[in-house]
């Protein structure tokens, strides 16, 4: 849910990174955190297990600058990817303004990718959202791995509606900011249109 504060002249939006376990959602946020000017970011919070798997969510507040005198802030969240944390994923989707689906390019993760994408669509629907009407981009992560699926196969399986899609190697930052910029632009465009 976007939040516009006319008093402090701020626009706040919520972006959620979704995807199967170990696809690199947290790595995306960590890269963004490490490469962002200290003035433009808040503290990154990770609610993780002892083995550094996301337990509830990661959170990173970012400030992108001003539009017509309004400071634009984006709150980036990740969901826990593991299948059994579904209740938590539903909670984090509440009030979402834009979604990044992070797919794992590895051949053996095809099923996990599809399951997670179906789960995203269903969980959004439960909250009254339609993925096809939300600002939404896809990222194919781990493109550097030797067992990565061909891009056209991933597109066919994971992006039937042909939303903007980006190849990424999140550990090295490849594609990370392109993905973020794309979804942020879509969110702002949607706000202008009167949605979100």
């Amino acid at each position, binding site marked *: *849910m*976007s*939040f*516009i*504060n*006319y*008093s*402090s002249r701020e*626009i*706040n939006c*919520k972006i959620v990174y979704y995807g199967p376990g170990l696809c690199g959602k947290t790595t995306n946020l960590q890269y963004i955190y490490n490469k962002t000017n200290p003035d433009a970011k*808040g*503290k990154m*919070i990770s*609610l993780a297990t002892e083995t550094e798997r996301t337990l*509830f*969510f990661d*959170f990173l*507040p970012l400030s*992108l*600058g001003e*539009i*017509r005198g*309004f400071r*634009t802030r984006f*709150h980036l969240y990740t969901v826990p990817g593991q299948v059994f944390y579904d*209740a*938590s994923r*539903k*909670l*984090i989707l*509440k*009030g979402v*303004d834009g979604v990044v689906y992070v797919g794992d390019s590895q051949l053996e993760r095809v099923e996990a990718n599809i399951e997670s994408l179906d789960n995203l669509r269903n969980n959004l629907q439960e909250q*009254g*959202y339609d993925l096809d009407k939300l600002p939404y981009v896809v990222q194919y992560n781990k493109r550097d791995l030797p067992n990565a699926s061909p891009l056209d196969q991933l597109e066919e399986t994971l992006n039937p509606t042909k939303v903007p899609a980006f190849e990424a190697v999140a550990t090295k930052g490849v594609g990370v900011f392109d993905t973020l*910029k794309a979804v*942020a*632009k879509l969110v*702002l*465009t949607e*706000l*202008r249109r*009167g*949605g*979100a």
Partner: protein
Amino acid sequence: MNNQLVMYEEEVRQINGICEVLHRDSNARAVLVIGKDGQPIASTGEVDTLDVTSLSSLTAGNVAATGGIASLLSEKEFAGQTHEGEKTSVYISIVGQRLILVVLYDDRSSLGLVRLRVRKATAELNTVLDTLVKKAASGNQPSVFAEITDDDIDNLFND
């Protein structure tokens, strides 16, 4: 679905006023008002040493998780929750389904006093929320987005 929370200056001023009175009357360390999605809306008291953004996000997550537990137990919601610390305690309550009111207090106050004062503040905040909902429904308010151009959006991303 109307998925946007808009705060106009008048309502923010009123919310800040309610927080200040609650802060004073409950002898609290600090009072925060947060959107249910974790957006900080108002804060008063000893907030300079607090990371209000992180606190807001974590509190909203906490409230969402507690709401999830309530729903599993066929409860509508748990209206209030307390976390007791050695030095600072936190009282969290939900206002009008959309806002979270957080009071941080120490041994200068007590849970009983905080809950008493929160009840009054909650009623006042509900009135402000009602006004906001009516304003949003009337559609007569200026939109900051109406005149934003593609260039404005693109310029945000020029490194």
